């Protein structure tokens, strides 16, 4: 590093010396200046025409400039600026000035004067605009200096009357970014305020430009005002009228900005009263703004429509009456009022009849309308969402759906009203919109109860072939409230149909029924005999226990029975048996029930409440028990470990909440056990040649421990640095063991020396990484090693090995402390199921795409870590990196991988199976804990003593069950 630095320094010197050789000796003065500016100066002097100069400047701009030399460079640039006649070069210089002032650590206050000076003398409009931009940069770099700010604002005001739109734009931008609220630009500072007439504050100056002739300037003026708002300067209410006028501007960018402006004002002054033109009524400002923005939902430009629809969603203070108008579109046919289909559906429902919709004149208009009352062009908010949801651009529709959801969440009655419209959106042509509306309905479903006809429409979507849609819908049904038992029946029926059509939805459907049952116990109750097909007199045949549809029905019934104690009385004998079976096999779907004459279940249900705590307790106790093992060679220690591991594994299976933690502990203990076994043999006392076999097992154990530690480190989320330290500690032990074994087998001294050095480095890096954790590692292997460190680093390898062996055998078991939450990363491949007997046939040399669908849980950053491995029968294996877009995130800590894997192989004589599995890739340098701290420590350390970075160990952990796929590459036909 040092050498490298020296080289760089040397290089710079050489460059600086070179230049005066070429140039006149007078230039030697510049020697003291940093090389960069000198070089630039030379270049600029050499430039014979403007194109050359421009080239130099462009070239110059590509390289960064050091902080110290910025000022010099700026001086040279300015000097050249005054001489330059070509506009484009001056423009470039101006932009460079801005760029340079952004340099970190450089304070641009020294160039303010120069910049303002140039501004005063500049004639070209473009260059002026660029200079103002530069001033803006300078101004934002100096937020603490009010005088500079004031001067800049004055400059901006002065140039506001420029004829070129770009200059006015930049001036307004500058005012927006730097203008201050309460310092009116008065005459006493003789600023531009005076020239514009009297005392003006920044807002009125900006708002003057709302009526500029150039749409770009108008936009810039509104943007500047919004910028002021963002800087927490309160915008005056007078602006509102002007902003409203701009809503009908000819240019879409102006309208779009005006929508924002109106929105901002409506948020600032929601309760002000504004008059309605053409009448003497008055309404709240927020309502008025809401009406005006609603109007923009039918604007000619779709950008404005998107903006307006989005904005509507965040206007929560709007009054009820206005809000509901957005869903109102008065229907009329031949001047007679017609009811909407929604209204008709509702009416039919309330009158107890199903919608027939079969009659030709079923929507025959009823009462005659007074022509004067029909308001065609909706004043105010009328029908804004009806338009938005029917828009031709899906961006607008999505924005409208989102806005609906935001408004509905804050108002229950609005939620009720917008239900029909959302349900209609389930039929949109774009899947994204359908999906979004399903999600939205789920979010607001706490407010609403679905009517039967609505439920019917919702359920119709269950047959959608898109998996995302169906799953979103299942999720929705989990949260819906329905009103009648017919609804339950309908839902069950449709879900079973769905199950029949798409068997892969099994889990999702069951889960859905679980919630449906537990939400509506009283509605399920009257259905039970029918659902379980029991008969008062006859015994009915026992249904097939493996039938997913039957399980689905049982899940529904059992979950309802949980809060409905009278229900079990209706069960037949086999139902109880099936309950016991399902309670065991699908414990996450079937709740504990209080069944009559079933003591066991009673106990079960009682401990159900406190089961998590008791399991936690059990886990802790097991760990405590293990911690009593002081010495690895203690008698009975191995047995205790064995039992504990078994207990923990079982606990993990039973208690899903603790599965991660239990698994983690078990794996950790297994490492300890392996280590113990490897060390405790008496072989260490024997001569080397006599215990070859023993050596082999020990080597294997060391290798396995290493692998396990990587699993521990990367497969579990929620680890704290203490646990990571513990894991690294075990890894260190395993490495020590490996070193010892190497020493015993290998004869050559050289490899041994290098591995000893490597080990010492490992210890050092451990110390570096876990300085904070060292106090917790009292009495451990590392602790002892660190004590012996001076000796270790000086002694010979053989001696070192001896020391290591002794310490290793003496060191005690490091107690594991559990963090709050540990989750194991898991993956389940849903598709391919591995059950198909039909081989996937394809021609050799070509590829076949295999669809993979998997759920990942508790995987951090799956886009980078999750890979798909394909293992061919001949031992070939391919690792495929799925695209980032293949990952979806249906919930927290949950990811979904839906991707295609391309397979290819040479010809086979008959079909055979390949294995597909998911891998979790890791790299030891990428751990969250080690990487940041390691790099920082390394940087601040003295450069000479910096060890080469720890070789990053990269690898993969398989974390899903492999799935077998039957394939058959056929030979190509010639």
């Amino acid at each position, binding site marked *: 590093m040092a050498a490298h630095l020296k080289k760089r320094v040397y290089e710079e010197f050489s460059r600086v010396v070179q230049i005066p050789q070429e140039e006149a000796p007078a230039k030697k003065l510049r020697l003291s200046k940093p090389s960069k500016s000198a070089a630039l100066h030379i270049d600029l002097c050499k430039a014979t025409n403007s194109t050359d100069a421009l080239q130099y400047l462009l070239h110059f701009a590509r390289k960064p400039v050091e902080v110290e030399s910025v000022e010099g460079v700026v001086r040279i640039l300015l000097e050249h600026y005054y001489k330059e006649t070509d506009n484009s070069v001056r423009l470039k210089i101006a932009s460079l000035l801005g760029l340079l002032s952004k340099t970190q650590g450089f304070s641009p206050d020294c160039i303010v004067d120069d910049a303002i000076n140039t501004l005063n003398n500049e004639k070209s409009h473009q260059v002026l605009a660029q200079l103002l931009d530069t001033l803006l940069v300078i101004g934002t770099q100096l937020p603490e200096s009010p005088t500079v700010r004031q001067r800049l604002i004055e400059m901006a005001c002065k140039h506001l009357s420029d004829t070129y739109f770009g200059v006015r734009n930049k001036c307004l931008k500058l005012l927006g970014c730097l203008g201050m609220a309460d310092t009116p630009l008065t005459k006493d500072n003789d600023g531009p305020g005076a020239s514009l007439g009297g005392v003006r504050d920044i807002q009125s100056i900006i708002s003057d430009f709302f009526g500029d002739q150039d749409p770009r300037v108008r936009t810039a003026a509104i943007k500047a005002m919004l910028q002021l708002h963002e800087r927490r300067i309160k915008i005056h209410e007078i602006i509102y009228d002007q902003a409203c006028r701009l809503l009908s501007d000819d240019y879409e960018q102006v309208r779009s900005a005006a929508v924002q402006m109106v929105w901002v004002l409506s948020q600032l002054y929601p309760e002000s009263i504004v008059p309605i033109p053409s009448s003497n009524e008055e309404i709240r400002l927020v309502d008025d703004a809401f009406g005006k923005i609603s109007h923009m939902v039918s604007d000619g430009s779709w950008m404005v429509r998107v903006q307006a629809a989005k904005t509507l969603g965040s206007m929560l203070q709007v009054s009820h009456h206005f809000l509901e108008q957005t869903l109102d579109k008065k229907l*009329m046919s031949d001047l007679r009022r017609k009811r909407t*289909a929604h209204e008709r559906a509702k009416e039919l429902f309330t009158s107890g009849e199903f919608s027939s919709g079969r009659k030709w004149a079923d929507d025959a208009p009823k009462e005659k309308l007074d022509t004067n009352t029909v308001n*065609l062009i909706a004043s105010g908010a009328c029908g804004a969402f009806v338009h938005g*949801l029917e828009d031709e651009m899906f961006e607008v529709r999505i924005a409208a759906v989102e806005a609906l959801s935001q408004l509905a969440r804050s108002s229950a009655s609005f939620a009720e009203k917008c239900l029909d419209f959302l349900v209609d*959106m389930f039929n949109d042509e774009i899947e994204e919109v359908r999906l979004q509306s399903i999600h939205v309905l789920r979010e607001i479903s706490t407010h609403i109860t679905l009517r039967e006809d609505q439920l019917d429409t919702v359920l119709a979507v269950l*047959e959608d072939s898109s998996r995302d849609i169906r799953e979103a819908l299942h999720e929705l049904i989990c949260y819906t409230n329905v009103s009648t038992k017919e609804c339950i029946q309908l839902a069950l029926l449709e879900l079973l149909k769905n199950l029949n059509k798409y068997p892969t939805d099994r889990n999702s459907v069951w889960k859905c029924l679980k919630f449906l049952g537990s939400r509506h116990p009283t509605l399920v109750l009257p259905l039970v005999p029918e659902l379980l097909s029991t008969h008062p007199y006859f015994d009915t045949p026992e249904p097939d226990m493996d039938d997913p549809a039957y399980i689905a029905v049982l899940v529904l019934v059992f979950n309802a029975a949980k809060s409905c104690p009278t229900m079990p009385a209706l069960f037949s004998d086999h139902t109880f048996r099936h309950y016991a079976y399902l309670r065991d096999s699908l414990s996450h779907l079937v709740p504990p029930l209080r069944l009559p004459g079933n003591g066991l279940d009673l106990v079960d249900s009682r401990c159900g409440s406190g089961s998590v705590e008791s399991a936690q307790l059990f886990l802790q106790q097991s760990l405590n028990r293990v911690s009593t093992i002081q010495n690895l060679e203690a008698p009975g220690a191995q047995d205790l470990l064995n039992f504990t591991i078994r207990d923990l594994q079982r606990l993990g299976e039973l208690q899903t909440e603790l599965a991660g933690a239990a698994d983690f502990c078990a794996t950790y203990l297994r490492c300890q056990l392996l280590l113990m076994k490897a060390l405790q043999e008496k072989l260490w006392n024997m001569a080397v040649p006599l215990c070859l076999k023993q050596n082999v097992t020990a080597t294997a154990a060391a290798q396995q421990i290493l692998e396990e530690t990587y699993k521990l480190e990367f497969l579990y989320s929620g680890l704290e640095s203490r646990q990571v330290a513990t894991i690294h500690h075990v890894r260190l032990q395993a490495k020590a063991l490996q070193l010892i074994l190497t020493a015993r087998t290998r004869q050559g001294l050289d490899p041994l020396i290098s591995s000893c050095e490597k080990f010492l480095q490992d210890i050092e890096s451990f110390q570096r990484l876990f300085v904070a954790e060292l106090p917790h590692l009292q009495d451990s292997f590392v602790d002892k090693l660190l004590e012996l460190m001076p000796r270790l680093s000086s002694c010979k390898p053989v001696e070192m090995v001896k020391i290591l062996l002794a310490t290793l055998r003496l060191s005690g078991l490091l107690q594991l402390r559990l963090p709050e939450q540990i989750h194991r990363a898991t993956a389940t491949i849903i598709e391919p199921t591995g059950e198909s007997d039909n081989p996937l046939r394809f021609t050799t040399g070509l590829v076949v795409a295999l669809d993979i669908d998997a759920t990942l849980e508790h995987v951090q950053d799956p886009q980078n870590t999750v890979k798909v491995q394909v293992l061919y029968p001949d031992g070939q294996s391919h690792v495929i990196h799925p695209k980032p877009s293949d990952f979806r995130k249906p919930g927290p800590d949950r990811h979904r991988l839906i991707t295609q894997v391309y397979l290819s192989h040479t010809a086979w004589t008959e079909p055979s199976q390949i294995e597909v599995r998911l891998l979790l890739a890791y790299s030891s340098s990428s751990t969250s804990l080690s990487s940041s701290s390691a790099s920082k420590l390394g940087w601040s350390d003295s450069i000479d003593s910096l060890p080469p970075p720890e070789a990053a160990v990269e690898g993969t952990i398989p974390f899903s069950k492999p799935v077998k796929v039957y394939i058959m590459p056929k030979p190509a036909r010639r």
Partner: protein
Amino acid sequence: MPEIKVTPLGAGQDVGRSCILVSIGGKNIMLDCGMHMGYNDDRRFPDFSYITQNGRLTEFLDCVIISHFHLDHCGALPFMSEMVGYDGPIYMTHPTKAICPILLEDFRKITVDKKGETNFFTSQMIKDCMKKVVPLNLHQTVQVDDELEIKAYYAGHVLGAAMVQIKVGSESVVYTGDYNMTPDRHLGAAWIDKCRPDILISESTYATTIRDSKRCRERDFLKKVHESIERGGKVLIPVFALGRAQELCILLETFWERMNLKAPIYFSTGLTEKANHYYKLFITWTNQKIRKTFVQRNMFEFKHIKAFDRSYADNPGPMVVFATPGMLHAGQSLQIFKKWAGNEKNMVIMPGYCVQGTIGHKILNGQRKLEMEGRSTLDVKLQVEYMSFSAHADAKGIMQLIRMAEPRNMLLVHGEAVKMEFLKGKIEQEFSIDCHMPANGETATVTTNPSVPVDISLNLLKREMALGGPLPDPKKPRTMHGTLIMKENSLKLVSSEQALKELGLNEHQLRFTCRVQLQDPHSDPDTLNRIYTHLKSVLKGYTIQHLPDGTVMVESIVIKVSSSAEDTSTKVLLLSWSYQDDVFFCFFFVSFLSLIFSKQWLRDSIDS
């Protein structure tokens, strides 16, 4: 004042045979040239004799514009161009140009071959007529001649439907044709920019209707079809060959795809297949979804929809069949209907309006026993559904378009008079613009107030700019001095010096003079001196000179003093000024008089 005249030959307070004559800025344009479906005699076509009694139309019309391919908008085109005689350009969009001849040919076949009419246009005439067509692109400005230009906007409604803006100088007319403001499954919504035409000629089919949301109807339709299929029934959908049929096809196709349904969908063949081919080609004219996905798959390449064969009607199992014609009055749809009518599991869905007298109308009104030819009766057991899929703008849509285009006048066509009356009232009330609704043959006249473009010399502009106050105040009118030169049909505003130079004229000075008498005892030079000093103190900032020849000059105003012969104390002031300084002189004179009658002056006089 220039006028724009609009005369509907058809579609004036009526639906059918759209044909509107517009004369604007000395140009005559025919908008659409359609036929009336309801008549079989001369009333079928517009009355071209309105334009000229005998002879060809070419010299009377500058161009013909066809908005879309529906026969009530283009059906009379070959008749007009070939039989009446018109050789000028005919403008239509590319899809219209492609599909229009198919429909015309079909129409010809039915009238000539089936009904046996003579004296009708021939296939060759259709071909000849189409040769005169000039295709248009959306938003492309086409220069018909030096002054007349036209521009097409997207109108929805059917594939290739366009709204046209016709512009002569600064006068313009927008004709909408038929349009739709709500997008459907295959087309987008009509769009126009804020072009502020003098007249907006809009259709008004649904002038008194505000329609329900499209989604409800679609959902109902799909639900009904789906339920029927699940029951194992057959569904018959009688359709007109083009337009709605494609929309419904897409609707069913995507539904089948989404729901993974397997039942076959058939489309009765015929001209539809040819037309479908064009739908595949003109993807740019369709809606966002189809445009976006056509790279993966063209939505008009139906996966589930196959061509229908007569024998399929007897196949067992569920199916959906689209068959023409739409009102069940003849042809394939009637044949299939007869076959399926007996089974209550089956269903017929009428997607549109049915004319009285057709079987479609009868069954929609609930008739369950139909009398067929040959005294046989047919029991109708199948379900009959009605589902309106219409692609015209409703009252709200029309208002929305007016809001988008901001016209100065409104003109309604293509609708019923009573309904128009209502909409007219609404438009006048909401937008406070004039609204016309001429009947066929009646002329609506609109006077326009076109702005006259004038070239201005840059120097003059800059000079006047420098004089004016600071920006921004761009919308405030500002007076400027210059000379307007009208030369060879162009107007030019230049400074007066330049005008003189250009026209080779000498500059003449116009001066006014006046005399003022006043009492002053001083001698002439003294009086002049006093005036001079006073003016100097009063009129600061003006150049005031005391010339040696005994005059005082204030700018261009000359003051001379002379005393009358008889009374030396009565002085006569001679004032002379040029006409440019007339305004200044008034100001000067007022201050001058005040000076003279001020006490100061009098006192000074008395003192001396």
